């Protein structure tokens, strides 16, 4: 399965495509899509240039990012591992 992730244009924040086609700041709000539909979704999403700076697909399941880029995507979804007060992990506190 895949998830669409991007950086929000205005502030660069990490966002995920949500089931209602909006952007979620949390991975937990992301919509899981099948590998088969992924390319179609990303090509439509990439046209939303006023919302995002960059969009790409990551391997994921319901628990979070998986596969080769797990560490990188986990850090993106949480914040720097050396500053638990910053990023989304800090906002949760």
């Amino acid at each position, binding site marked *: 399965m895949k998830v669409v992730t991007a*950086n929000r*244009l*205005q*502030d*660069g*924040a*990490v966002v995920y495509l949500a089931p209602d086609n909006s952007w979620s700041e949390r991975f937990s709000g992301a919509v899981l899509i099948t590998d088969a539909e992924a390319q179609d979704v990303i090509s439509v999403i990439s046209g939303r*240039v*006023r919302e995002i*700076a*960059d969009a790409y697909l990551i391997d994921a399941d319901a628990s979070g990012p998986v*596969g*080769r*880029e*797990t*560490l*990188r995507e986990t*850090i*993106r979804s949480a*914040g*720097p*591992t*050396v*500053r638990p007060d*910053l*990023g989304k992990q800090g906002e949760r506190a």
Partner: protein
Amino acid sequence: MYRYDEFDETIVRERVKEFRGQVERRLSGEITEDQFKPLRLMNGLYLQLHAYMLRVAIPYGTLSSRQMRQLAFIAREYDKGYGHMTTRQNIQYNWPALVDTPAILDALADVEMHAIQTSGNCIRNVTSDQYAGAAEDEVEDPRPWCEIIRQWSSFHPEFSFLPRKFKIAVTASEHDRAAVKVHDIGLRLYKNSEGRTGFEVLVGGGLGRTPYIGHVIRDFLPKEHLLSYLEAILRVYNLLGRRDNAYKARIKIQVNAEGIDAFRGMVEEEWARIKDSGVDLPREEIERIRRYFAPPPFEKLPRESTAFNDAAASDKGFARWARVNTVAHKQPGYAIVNISLKPPGKPPGDISDEQMEAAAHIAERYSFDELRVTHEQNICLPHVKKDDLYAVYQSLQAADLATANIGLASDIIACPGLDYCTLANARSIPIAERIAERFSAAGVEDDIGELKIKISGCINACGHHHVGHIGILGVDKKGEEFYQITLGGSGAEDASIGEIAGRGLSSDEVIDAVERLVDYYRANRQDGERFLDAYRRLGLDRFKEAIYADAQAA
């Protein structure tokens, strides 16, 4: 210090205005990200893992207190209360919003600062010795020459779209604190046997995936010909450097492919053509710029300070800090004070807005209003009276800025790594933090002496691992972080590229391996021998055994 003239002021303000328009067009959707990216990069604005990142130039590392306060203001107002000092005398903000960047650039322009030449394939922010104008061993202050290069290179129409980025560093001391041998062009001012001062010019040094030590292209260049000679080098590179492959586009590849003699021949030919064509500055213009860097009004003081000696005798912590963090000044009765941004367990090079304010205040009161940032990610106060050192130390202590570890094992260079950077393969900062904590907790740093540990999270080598006495390179192996050790590198006057010690180690293994390397050094060193000296005497194989002694077999 240099002050902007009307041309500098206009050019920077115009640039901010232009960028404001570009941001507006991007936000409105008038231009796409692909169109906007090269424009934002020309203004130092990157997109990293969590947010945008703004890289601000600190030309030749020199800052006034007013400028440092403005950097603090930006950190507080537009970022998350801190900045990160880089290995190229820049400061990076890790969380600015795109919508705020024009206002940030305006705030920078208010204090004669900008983010120009911090990205793109141009001549980047010129770097220098952080002790310039204060060092005991310099022949003259190198910064007027840095400023001349800055003015010549900023928006240079011919050199704004080079095959790749281009980095120039300048020193004027025998002891190289600016790593000039690992720059595209390294310049060393010295006095020749006839008593004339000029530049030794090196070309084709660099780190990254193909590290090289620079070659001497000219052993003595009369100072007044600096710009025409630089222009000749840049022109040969710009015309003939490769543009087909980004990894082969730096000047070091061209110099080493052509051979230094052939490359020198082309440069000399071009130089002969342009040398007398008005590229070089007239003497009075050089003098005008030099006057901005006149020494501050030093007092005539005895070499020794009774106040300092008394304080050092009664406060051991102060005595140690002074021994480790201060350096002899060329003016009797003064010292250079280094402020470490490497407290063990914290990200190397990070400084909070409050600490910036404190450093600005201390510089204003005790160092003629001047600060420097170093390529080793620390700060220094260039001109402090020895009589004031104890007061400076106490003020630094109050701001958590009195870590005494300059040049020691915990004074580690580390790039932002996978905690922030889109290019990284592995994290750097946690490795730096753990190594620093290990040595500092053991209380062995003074015994170990000078040790340069440098860590990069990918082969681009922003953490200078190739020139670490112990270098650590983070690599990705099927989604897991591994760390490769290199040994025997140096970025100083005895420059060398470290040798790869063997297979990569896990993040736990690498901490232990570094400790074993240091233990091996302590057990086998001769009197007065630094780690690097012992390595050069004993060789890779002996140290390699120490690395893999207890690690799992490959």
